[in-house]
């Protein structure tokens, strides 16, 4: 990836359902403003939303970053949280560790990470138990 021309950060609070989705929404608006293709924006918006929701659902707090380079967009979601015990298992559709309350709200379908994988061109997950998780997603846009 070439040096990013624009970098935006958004903080995300764990458990803050009311504000959940705002970071993804701001990312979407920023991309629209600079004229990124609508199909690419859709993919980024979905992946960013899911990453943001994972912080809200599972972590204490976290940060979302959007990097815009000439050929690529990168979304980084890093959090202070429990980490992912088994990444392969977490990538399986239907697997979830979300709370009962979250499930009643329609979260915890076990589709977040699979959606992120589907929407991004590459996804890298770094996680340390009881410390946190960092998800890096790249999107080609040229």
């Amino acid at each position, binding site marked *: 990836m070439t040096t990013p021309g624009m970098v935006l950060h958004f903080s995300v609070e764990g458990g803050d359902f009311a504000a959940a*989705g705002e970071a993804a*929404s701001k990312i*979407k608006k920023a991309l629209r403003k600079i004229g990124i293709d609508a199909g690419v924006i859709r993919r980024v918006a979905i992946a960013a939303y*899911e990453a943001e929701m994972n912080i809200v659902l599972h972590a204490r707090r976290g940060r979302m970053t959007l990097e815009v380079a000439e050929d690529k967009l990168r979304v980084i979601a890093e959090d202070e949280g429990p980490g992912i015990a088994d990444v392969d298992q977490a990538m399986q559709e239907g697997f979830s560790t979300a709370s009962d309350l979250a499930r009643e*709200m*329609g979260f915890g*379908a076990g589709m977040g990470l*699979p959606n992120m994988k589907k929407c991004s061109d590459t996804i890298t997950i770094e996680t340390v138990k009881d410390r946190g998780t960092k998800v890096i997603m790249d999107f080609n846009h040229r």
Partner: protein
Amino acid sequence: MNLKEVLEKTEARMITGESETDRECRGFYVSDLLSDVMGNAGEGEVWLTIQTHSNVVAVALLLNLAAVLFTAGAEPDATTIEKARAEGVVLLATALPTFEAAGRLYRALMEEK
């Protein structure tokens, strides 16, 4: 089909977006799982759900949905309505059960073709 017809077919009322009755809807998606909607609903569609919390607005906004139709008498709280107004998301509500509402819309859509 536009939102006016959606309102008629499902005996629904508009909670927000009163000026958007002409808005065209490209299809419908029925689900109460947010990630399912995120992954599968298309732009310009109307989403039928019984989930009423404010994150529904975030999903509708990110996907550029035509509207959210709350079914089975589900009523959004004040926070959801406020957020929808601020973001220009159209909210509709019907007392019809989800199956009945979806069935009527499906039939109308087939007759249109």
